[in-house]
């Protein structure tokens, strides 16, 4: 069985488009498009909202409300929205299917980004907020120059978990007549071509891992070392004894 999956994946004719079949590369791009659009919209909604709620400590119920959205059955909502929306789009366009898909995906991606952004900002040490205001920063300056950079690790973890979920769930696009890596899974199931079905699943998993790796790398460069505490060994965090020595050094400097 595993050998069949490997054979299916390594067959170069499966990767490129043919007259009858769409290849893996094309479906991969389609998959990434669904994910990319949903992630962009989710970020546009959840990031500013999370920052605002965390900073002002108002409208906290919105976060709880968004989290409740996670309980919605994805396929059920997808079918419902498709029935409502797709009749408005006629002809040779797949917009009528794309819109319901993206709505479902956005609903899925907003909660983790929103709640992590909110938690990140809200958990900034009160002393640091106090100092920032006390130095004479305005509200937006405190948010953008202090609270946002400090909450980046939590924000990133929200974005990463949202992305993983998007990549896994974007397969439902193929439940509708749309492309994406889900195509192989649904078609494999329908044709009882299990190597194709499992191969599709492996591709989705591989894409998820690879994307997470990319995001982790970005996070490494975007988040300040002062927060991640990745200090070069030469200037590692001093233990208390070294600190005491520095203290005395300082006193006589």
């Amino acid at each position, binding site marked *: 069985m595993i050998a069949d999956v490997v054979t299916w994946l390594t067959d170069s004719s499966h990767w490129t488009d043919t007259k009858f079949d769409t290849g893996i590369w094309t479906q991969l791009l389609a998959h990434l498009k669904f994910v990319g659009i949903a992630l962009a919209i989710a970020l546009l909604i959840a990031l500013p909202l999370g920052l605002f709620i965390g900073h002002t400590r108002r409208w906290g119920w919105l976060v709880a409300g968004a989290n409740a959205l996670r309980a919605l059955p994805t396929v059920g909502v997808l079918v419902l929205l498709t029935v409502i929306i797709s009749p408005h789009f006629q002809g040779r366009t797949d917009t009528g299917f794309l819109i319901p898909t993206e709505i479902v995906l956005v609903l899925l991606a907003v909660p983790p980004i929103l709640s992590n952004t909110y938690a990140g900002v809200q958990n900034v040490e009160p002393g*640091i907020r*106090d100092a920032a*205001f*006390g*130095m004479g920063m305005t509200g937006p300056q405190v948010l953008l120059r202090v609270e946002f950079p*400090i909450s980046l690790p939590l924000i990133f973890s929200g974005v990463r978990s949202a992305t993983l979920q998007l990549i896994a769930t974007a397969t439902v696009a193929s439940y509708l007549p749309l492309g994406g890596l889900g195509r192989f899974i649904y078609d494999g199931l329908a044709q009882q071509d299990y190597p194709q079905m499992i191969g599709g699943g492996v591709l989705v998993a591989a894409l998820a891992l690879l994307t997470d790796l990319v995001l982790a790398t970005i996070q490494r460069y975007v*988040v300040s070392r*002062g927060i991640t505490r990745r200090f070069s060994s030469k200037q590692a965090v001093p233990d*208390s004894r070294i600190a005491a020595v520095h203290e005395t050094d300082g006193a006589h400097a």
Partner: protein
Amino acid sequence: MIRFDAVTKRYPDGTVAVDSLELTAASGQITVLVGPSGCGKTTSLRMINRMIEPTSGTIWLDDTDTASMATHELRRQIGYVIQHAGLFPHRTIVDNIATVPFLLGTDKKEARKTALELLERVGLPPHFAKRYPAQLSGGQQQRVGVARALAADPPVMLMDEPFSAVDPVVREQLQDEFLRLQQELGKTIVFVTHDIDEAIKLGDQVAVLRVGGHLAQLASPVELLSRPIDAFVAGFVGRDRGYRALGFTTAGTLSTRGEPTVTLGAAIPKGTDTDTWLLVVDAQQAPQGWLDLGADFTGHETVSDELLYRGGTLATQGGTLRAALDACLSSPSGRGVVVDDGGALIGSVTAREVLELIEARETERQP
């Protein structure tokens, strides 16, 4: 100058944190607000830079009503140091210090240069500039906190229990350096603490507040110790007030007598009948401790460290009467050891001589 004019802070639930406070913090001086918890000292401080808005009354910054300014403008003119320093963890030390200059739009290069100078001024090595707060100890972070408050050279500084989160040894160091810094800079400082000893050590004037936000007494430290206005202040200022007040009177030049000594590492001398305690000094003439000549020296040829009695404190010539008296009282021989600024032995005085000096001072003061 900062002036509280009938300032009251009442919270919506009816609690009065500060009750029509009248207080003037003189320019170039350290005014310490001290009192038990719940006395409104921190609230009073935070009303100056409007981190808390007063319910009624006016706080004047020189001739400006602070309520008439935009809060962020006001705060940029006032240095602010808080208990755990509150440094920004994502910024390097140099950028932390330069926070306010950055806000004021100072050229980044210029601001960082000033920040580096300040880093040295608060006693930290320049290579700390590129580090992050997490790499510094609590005491070092607090130094950076002070430097950050000084960065835009504000005439006024507010300090909210800045030294209370560090251990006692570091605290004393920070206090001493803070006083040295203030001597150079002459800022108008309002300082909050719950520690009356810190208040007395640092304050040019001390405001004792009682629970409910009333000013109990505003006085110089020595007056507070010698003339507490009521039982509350007396109780809060604590015991040994008379003795502690001596810490504010310089002894002048003490007339000492020479003290026979033996150098560390020399042979143990034979004891005389009259005096069993002999002062031990090192090669630089710095007193190390006392040697009990009546003791049993079996197994020892020379004067070594473990034979010394080290309980005695040292008085510095030109220091306070308190230090002189303490040196006498703590010395096993009854003779207080007096040293010069470099720590080298000058001679000794007795408690009787110091007391005579104290009595002479009293007569001078009340002829």
